[in-house]
């Protein structure tokens, strides 16, 4: 149940002439993880790869021009099997003819956008001069100097400051700022600089123009910009129309070409001699003989299929029953088991829902979570959401069951008007029992991790590690006996001198740990206590969840409803409207509050249950670090 798939290394030696057919056969077979061959010379892609790659570049360029992915057109497509390459190439050639005008439009659009950008920049340069109907020829004089500056103060301020100097000013307001064109005697440039520094911003250079005057030049640029924008919009409309008509074709062609490209590129991983191709990979052991038979049947004596013994580390393929496969996600999220390591999915599938249910524990929340999980599971047939929903189904069932244990329904102790009697009350005196239960779960969970650690190390013939894990288990037992003899002596009353027994076990285990794991292990002993105490979060989070639900239940929906009934009885129209309004508002707040409490509960329960597995449980036996088995059919199809 906890074993991962046993892998077999296979080597296939085929004629170069047959390589394409062999690839097709392997893709059809599917369940092979092709690795880079160390035999022979370096392999090369199939000859047709260059043609496919060049078509792909062109199709991707088309897709980028059309920009359909942004518009969501890719979502409406579905792919039904792989079409032959010749058919795709022929359709691509046909499409290229139609796409000639698309390319021309796109080229023109790029040019027009460039022109637009240049004209916009030119307009920004001309903006301060747009009201000046002056020819640049007038601004050339041996005795005079001209400057164009933005006014910082007031016109009067500038005129007063320049009084007595030989200078004249022309004010204009092209935008929000006022600009001043100043003409002054060149000999008074020094004095004028001081005036400008006090009243104006930095001067701008007079732009070079081709029109009769600045104002005319600005109008020409403005008109050019409007024309360019209109043309760009026109071209974008044409491209958009083309997209609506042909984008699905581009996507289908691109997808098909990509699959063929991946197939054609595969031989670059093969080894090569003058006439042979050497393919190496991993196949599940139970299917390896079938692959050999299949290839020999297809290629008779022109192919050699060898089962190879190797020291290379195989990829990991989990092999769990369909029912618990959703929990594989949690194991992969941490780290895939190394090859040969036991897969903890089955353990996590049992303990995760229990811990989750113990934290959230409410009949109402459990049933709502179950409904959500079933809907999501139906909507998503694979991927993250499918796995998450599968896990939530189990967790929600446990939440409902623990809701019965705690006697809680949306934070109340009533279900359909009937008072429930909790087995464990989450409040008052019941908290001590809950605290004890949380610690018991911790003890069992950590002990399970250690027992699995002993068993796996023994199975792998790592006897030293197996013995060390057994001593850790003894430490845990000793801690339980010592703690119980202090806190709950009645539980260990049957044991002879429990304190002495516990201390003796602890001493033996510490000596054993010293010899099996070294002195550093002794310093880690307190971590065992912390690991178990960490499970108290089950109680702590559960209590906070209940308190939150009880706070939400304080919302006076019942009182508002009673007010509504009373108002209806009095036939008081104003009272009915007021009561109805307050009832509706309180009902919305109540539902929203419970929805928020449920969302928080789902999130916290998942994260904390996961943490207890990753930190407290996995640290007792699990290493991970495996790399995934990637079946060729998935690799070629692109996931």
């Amino acid at each position, binding site marked *: 149940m906890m074993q991962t798939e046993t892998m077999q290394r296979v080597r296939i030696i085929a004629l170069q002439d047959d390589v394409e057919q062999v690839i097709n056969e392997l893709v059809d077979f599917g369940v092979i993880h092709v690795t880079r061959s160390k035999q022979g010379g370096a392999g090369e892609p199939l000859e047709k790869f260059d043609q496919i790659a060049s078509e792909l570049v062109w199709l991707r360029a088309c897709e980028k021009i059309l920009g359909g992915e942004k518009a969501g057109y890719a979502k409406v497509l579905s792919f039904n099997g792989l079409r032959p390459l010749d058919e795709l190439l022929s359709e691509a050639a046909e499409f290229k003819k139609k796409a000639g005008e698309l390319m021309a439009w796109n080229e023109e659009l790029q040019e027009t956008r460039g022109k637009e950008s240049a004209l916009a920049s030119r307009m920004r340069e001309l903006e301060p001069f747009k009201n000046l109907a002056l020819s640049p020829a007038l601004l050339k004089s041996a005795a005079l100097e001209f400057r164009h500056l933005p006014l910082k103060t007031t016109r009067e301020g500038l005129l007063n400051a320049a009084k007595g100097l030989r200078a004249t000013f022309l004010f204009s307001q092209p935008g929000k700022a006022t600009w001043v064109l100043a003409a002054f005697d060149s000999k008074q440039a020094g004095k004028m600089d001081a005036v400008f520094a006090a009243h104006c911003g930095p001067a701008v250079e007079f732009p070079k123009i081709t029109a009769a005057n600045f104002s005319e030049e600005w109008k020409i640029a403005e008109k050019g910009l409007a024309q360019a924008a209109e043309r760009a919009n026109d071209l974008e409309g044409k491209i958009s129309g083309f997209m609506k008509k042909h984008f699905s074709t581009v996507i289908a062609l691109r997808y098909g070409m990509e699959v063929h490209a991946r197939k054609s590129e595969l031989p670059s991983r093969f080894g090569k001699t003058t006439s042979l191709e050497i393919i190496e990979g991993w196949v599940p052991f139970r299917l390896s003989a079938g692959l050999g038979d299949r290839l020999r049947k297809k290629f008779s004596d022109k192919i050699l299929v060898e089962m190879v013994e190797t020291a290379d580390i195989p990829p990991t393929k989990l092999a769990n029953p369909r029912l618990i496969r959703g929990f594989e996600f949690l194991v992969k999220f941490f780290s895939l088991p190394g090859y040969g390591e036991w897969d903890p999915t089955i353990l996590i599938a049992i303990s995760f829902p229990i811990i989750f249910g113990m934290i959230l524990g409410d009949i109402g929340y459990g049933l709502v979570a179950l409904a959500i999980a079933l809907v999501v599971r139906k909507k998503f047939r694979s991927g993250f959401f499918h796995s998450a929903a599968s896990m939530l189904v189990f967790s929600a069932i446990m939440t409902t069951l623990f809701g019965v244990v705690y006697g809680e329904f949306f934070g109340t102790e009533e279900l359909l008007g009937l008072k429930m009697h909790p087995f464990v009350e989450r409040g008052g005196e019941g908290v001590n029992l809950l605290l004890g239960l949380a610690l018991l779960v911790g003890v069992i969970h950590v002990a399970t991790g250690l027992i699995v650690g002993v068993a796996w190390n023994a199975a792998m013939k790592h006897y030293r590690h197996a013995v060390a894990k057994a001593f850790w288990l003894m430490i845990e037992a000793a801690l339980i006996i010592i703690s119980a003899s202090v806190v709950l002596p009645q539980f260990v009353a049957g044991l002879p001198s429990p304190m002495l027994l516990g201390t003796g076990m602890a001493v033996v285990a510490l000596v054993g740990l010293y010899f099996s794991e070294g002195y550093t292990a002794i310093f880690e002993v307190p971590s065992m206590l912390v690991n178990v105490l*960490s499970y108290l979060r089950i109680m702590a989070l559960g209590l906070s969840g209940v308190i939150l639900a009880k706070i939400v239940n304080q919302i006076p929906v019942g009182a508002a409803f009673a007010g509504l009934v009373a108002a209806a009885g009095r036939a008081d129209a104003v009272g009915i409207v007021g009561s109805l309004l307050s009832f509706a508002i309180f009902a919305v707040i109540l539902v929203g509050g419970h929805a928020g409490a449920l969302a928080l509960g789902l999130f916290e329960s998942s994260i904390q249950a996961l*943490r207890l597995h990753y930190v407290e449980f996995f640290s007792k036996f699990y290493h991970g670090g495996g790399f995934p088995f990637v079946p060729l059919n998935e690799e070629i199809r692109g996931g």
Partner: protein
Amino acid sequence: MVDIGIGLLGIGAGLAIGVSALGTGMAQSSIGAAGMGLMAEKEGKEGQVLLFLAIPETMVILGFVVAYLILTTFKG
């Protein structure tokens, strides 16, 4: 009139959970920043980052338990 002893128990319980929560927050801020850096550099490390981020949370849980024990055990 509330007994001063009850007030001191309340302060003790508040300190137990408050200081442990502060410690957890400080530890998680450094781990979180480093974890984000790790995830940006290397894909597929989310599990380990979550694990390291979750480790200091035990402090606040223990703080909560201590606060609970102060309020229930000593209060009598």
